[in-house]
């Protein structure tokens, strides 16, 4: 037996030999991989490509816009009507809804009013990824003021098949309407009335004037939910829209002819191809009218890149607007980034001078801007919380974006506003006409990407390299640790107990890891309980974020103490190397799973988690390296253990962004509340992958 082994090992397949080579040089491989991963991440802005409209059918800008000055006049008149109604009448909000509905009807649209009950979002641990549980509509007839009422108009495509639609959303606060909201309503109305006259519609147009008094997202999400979950029961408790209007407008004579029942039917218009949320904002002045695009939906989902492409193309090349996507402004002034950019610029110049064929063309300013935009794109994807009402659409697999249009002049400047409305109207018309040309759904372009500029993107094929490089060392190091401890143990046992039989050798060699696995399992169990605790903590009345945070952490510690007490006898006799190996295996599984659910979270998480997992070793354990690297390793270990503690990392991040005096104990509670309310998988990642991993690392650090 012993003689046959060496030739068998020599004959083993290439992949096995390659694997064992990597495992035997695990330290070197992991350092190389981590460094390469970080460098790739840093280079992503350089690797970004220009966007292009991938779908042939879209043909943005191929038709002349029909939106004219006449439509602008109409929009202005409507804005004046709305604004005056909003200012003069009482704050019930029904007046504006009624006015919008009437105008919708006047252009020949089908109109109804969508009522929704505001529900405070709560943490429901058992239905985390599913939609919010449906509760019965309260049987309160006087509740129409508690409900939001959104007027909805549908234009049927004259020769369309009625199976598809495009949705236009304008959120407005019915209780306290601002001029910018009135402007966005006016803009949408003028586009809507234009679309009611055109002959080229192939998809129905739905205009949802979303009542945003309880938040923009809530009203859009509840409308979408009702759109996709038809109720067929004749709900007796349902309040007719009639009542709401009669209550507030019984003094109006024409009200008697108002047929409320007709406005209660929930009308539909088929599958939604795309949705545009249009908002007029009053932002800081710039040279040109400007449009900000928000695209991130829940859990890092993005709309198809083609939708952003057509908006960008039409805005820049047809209407001369300035397009922006989210950027971290503080990074633009970062000296470190500028320095990196300049170094890169110099390096690429050098490379270009060496080989004239290379056209790298890295510009320092572009790099800094690209990095700031990329960081923002990655952050909002990683957070997993939608950046606007468009997020509600993505939950139903509808491509949607929010366009925040802001004029270059003040909102009261009539000339400036007129030209702004003309451009914006043409932009919206162009986007709708382009989407109208679409067959079926957006499918041609990317769904997984980061934006580094409005017209530059990093596709999944590029950005996953960085993550793969970061995660690759984990299984290698785990295997290396496991095999080295197994070898060491068996060698020592063999040398010590040569005469005895080999039974205990095999047992300790192959099943040794079970002791460590038990501990890892217990810690993960603890993390699971900790992740569920907020549900109970939030049930405690009269608490603020600080007390909630304190009770959460105290109860967590208590449970940890109880768990360790109860299971003390089970989790003994492990080696720290094996424990580290099992912990790394668990972490790599967690990271890989998370990368499927929300790639950005996994990417950001791996930057902290991977170095911590790879470097950790007991502080009291001596290592056979010179004193300086050993000390450095210890310092790094302690630093990482502090930084990677989730509340600590949040506090550091907040301190960097807003100054360290703003840090509060309750911050982490608020942050996690924010995450779970939005059903963000990032919460699960932090609680179920990051936290146990961090605890185990600390455990190893303090190992005797």
């Amino acid at each position, binding site marked *: 037996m012993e003689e046959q082994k060496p030739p068998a090992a020599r004959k083993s397949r290439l992949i096995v030999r390659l694997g064992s080579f990597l495992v035997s040089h695990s330290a070197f491989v992991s350092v190389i991989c981590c460094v390469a991963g970080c460098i790739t991440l840093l280079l992503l802005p350089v690797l970004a490509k220009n966007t292009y409209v991938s779908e042939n*059918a879209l043909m943005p800008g*191929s038709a002349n816009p029909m939106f004219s000055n006449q439509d602008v006049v109409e929009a202005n008149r409507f804005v004046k009507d709305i604004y005056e109604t909003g200012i003069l009448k009482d704050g019930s909000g029904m007046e504006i809804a009624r006015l919008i509905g009437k105008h919708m009807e006047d252009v020949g649209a089908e109109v109804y009013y969508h009522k929704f009950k505001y529900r405070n979002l709560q943490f429901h641990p058992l239905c985390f990824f599913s939609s919010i549980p449906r509760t019965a509509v309260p049987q309160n007839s006087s509740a129409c003021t508690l409900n939001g009422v959104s007027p909805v108009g549908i234009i049927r495509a004259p020769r369309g098949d009625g199976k598809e639609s495009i949705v236009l959303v304008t959120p407005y606060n019915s209780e306290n309407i601002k001029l910018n909201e009135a402007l966005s309503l006016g803009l949408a109305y003028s586009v809507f009335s234009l679309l009611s006259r055109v*002959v080229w519609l192939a998809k129905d147009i739905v205009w949802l004037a979303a009542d945003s008094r309880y938040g923009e997202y809530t009203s859009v999400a509840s409308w979408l939910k009702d759109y996709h979950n038809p109720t067929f029961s004749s709900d007796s408790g349902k309040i007719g829209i009639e009542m709401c209007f009669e209550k507030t407008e019984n003094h109006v004579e024409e009200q008697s002819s108002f047929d409320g029942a007709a406005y209660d039917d929930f009308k539909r218009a088929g599958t939604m191809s795309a949705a545009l949320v249009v908002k007029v904002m009053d932002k800081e002045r710039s040279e040109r009218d400007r449009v900000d695009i928000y695209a991130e939906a829940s859990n890092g989902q993005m709309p198809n890149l083609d939708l952003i492409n057509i908006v960008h193309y039409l805005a820049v090349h047809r209407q001369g607007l300035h397009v922006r996507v989210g950027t971290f402004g503080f990074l633009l002034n970062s000296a470190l980034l500028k320095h990196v950019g300049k170094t890169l610029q110099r390096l690429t110049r050098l490379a270009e001078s060496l080989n004239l064929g290379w056209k790298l063309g890295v510009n320092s300013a572009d790099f800094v801007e690209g990095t700031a935009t990329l960081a923002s794109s990655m952050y909002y994807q990683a957070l997993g919380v939608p950046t606007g009402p468009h997020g509600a659409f993505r939950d139903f697999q509808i491509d949607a974006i929010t366009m925040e249009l802001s004029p270059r002049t003040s909102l009261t400047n009539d000339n400036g506003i007129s030209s702004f409305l003309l451009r914006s109207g043409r932009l919206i018309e162009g986007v709708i006409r382009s989407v109208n040309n679409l067959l079926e759904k957006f499918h041609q372009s990317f769904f997984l990407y980061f934006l580094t500029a409005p017209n530059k993107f990093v596709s999944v094929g590029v950005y996953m390299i960085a993550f793969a490089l970061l995660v690759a060392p984990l299984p290698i190091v785990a295997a290396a640790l496991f095999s080295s401890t197994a070898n060491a143990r068996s060698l020592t046992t063999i040398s010590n107990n040569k005469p005895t039989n080999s039974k205990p050798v095999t047992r300790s060699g192959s099943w040794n890891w079970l002791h460590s696995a038990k501990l890892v399992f217990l810690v993960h169990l603890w993390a699971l309980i900790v992740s569920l605790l907020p549900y109970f903590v939030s049930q405690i009345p009269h608490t603020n974020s600080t007390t909630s945070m304190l009770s959460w952490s105290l109860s967590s510690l208590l449970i940890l103490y109880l768990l360790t007490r109860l299971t003390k006898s089970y989790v003994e006799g492990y080696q720290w190397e094996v424990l580290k190996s099992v912990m790394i295996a668990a972490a790599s599984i967690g990271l890989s799973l998370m990368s499927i659910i929300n790639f950005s979270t996994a990417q950001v998480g791996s930057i902290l988690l991977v170095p911590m997992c790879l470097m950790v070793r007991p502080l009291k354990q001596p290592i056979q390296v010179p004193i300086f690297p050993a000390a450095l390793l210890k310092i790094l270990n302690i630093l990482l253990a502090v930084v990677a503690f989730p509340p600590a990392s949040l506090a550091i991040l907040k301190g960097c962004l807003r100054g360290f005096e703003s840090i509060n104990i309750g911050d982490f509670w608020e942050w996690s509340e924010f995450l779970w309310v939005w059903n963000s998988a990032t919460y699960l990642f932090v609680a179920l992958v990051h936290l146990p991993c961090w605890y185990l690392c600390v455990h190893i650090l303090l190992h005797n």
Partner: protein
Amino acid sequence: MASMTQRLKPSWRNHPISSHLLIFHLVMASTLLPSLTSAIPSFSSTMHNNNWAVLVCTSRFWFNYRHMANTLSLYRTVKRLGIPDERIILMLADDMACNSRNTYPAQVFNNENHQLNLYGDNVEVDYRGYEVTVENLLRVLTGRHESAVPRSKRLLSDEGSHILLYMTGHGGDEFLKFQDSEELQSHDLADAVKQMKEKHRFKELLIMVDTCQAATLFSQLHSPGVLAIGSSKKGENSYSHHLDSDIGVSVVDRFTFYTLAFFEKLNMYSNASLGSLFHSYNPNLLMSTAFYRMDLYQRPLDEVPVTNFFGSVMKTIHTDSPFRVISSQPKVKESIFLGDDKVKEIDKRNIKVENDAIVALTLKKVFLSFRSFFTYYVLANTIIDTVLSYFCP
């Protein structure tokens, strides 16, 4: 052979003959006929005596509006130059006129000036929508249809036919895409043309293709009598000519646009040659290089009028009434819109042989009529009696 009919005719006219005598003549004619058919000249020298056009638009969807407009423009042109509707097989993969995105419902234009509606009252589409498949095109070309397919959907060409095959759509290296789901490969096309050649389904075939890398589609052709024009060479794209910003799509391709521009100046009596058509393509305007393959084609292009393919030659048999044709000598009138006298002068013998062929065909027709009389004997008796009484009062 022409004298044979001469001899038959007086015998009927001069003697009051009975129907029995007529049957005798019939038998005589039937014995004579085999010798007559054997005298029909061989295929290669068959005179060009009819024209067909197969016009194919292979792409669906609104953004491919221009392909339908291309095909309809060609349809209009060949109709204007004299090919009748029953000899045009029009295949349109989609219906742009009734697309809900069309700003001009039920109309199709190939120019942004909207002067000419290509989709007027007089358009007969033979294959539409999902009927436009590679299989159906190959069936049309090779004539291998299922029995239920009506005559109007068949290419009933013969050895004297000049066929124009025009195709437009999205193509690539050695293929032309059909309907987003399948493609016609250059081998398929070459195979179909070879089958057509073997089945004597054409005398000359002009294949005109407006697609990217159109030239590659002809690379496998090797049947004689085939002339091929493509809008672009290998590795080149064919571009659309202009965008109609009212309709919001490109309405015509460059190659087709300049082809049409050439034909708009012509009428059915024009003498313009294929050579002049080919030279009219300016690579700078096309943004691609028009390619023509003529190694399989014998005649010099400068001497072939475009109307040989885009127009129509027709043989008209003038008769006063349906029945008089039996007894009276058929007056064969040839109205050939060749327009080019040179062609006739080059080969007078050819024309003579051709005349003989026409006579032989006429005789064959007479015989077939007789045979039908024989079958319906009673009916024939009464009819012949009336005929005879008409001639011999």
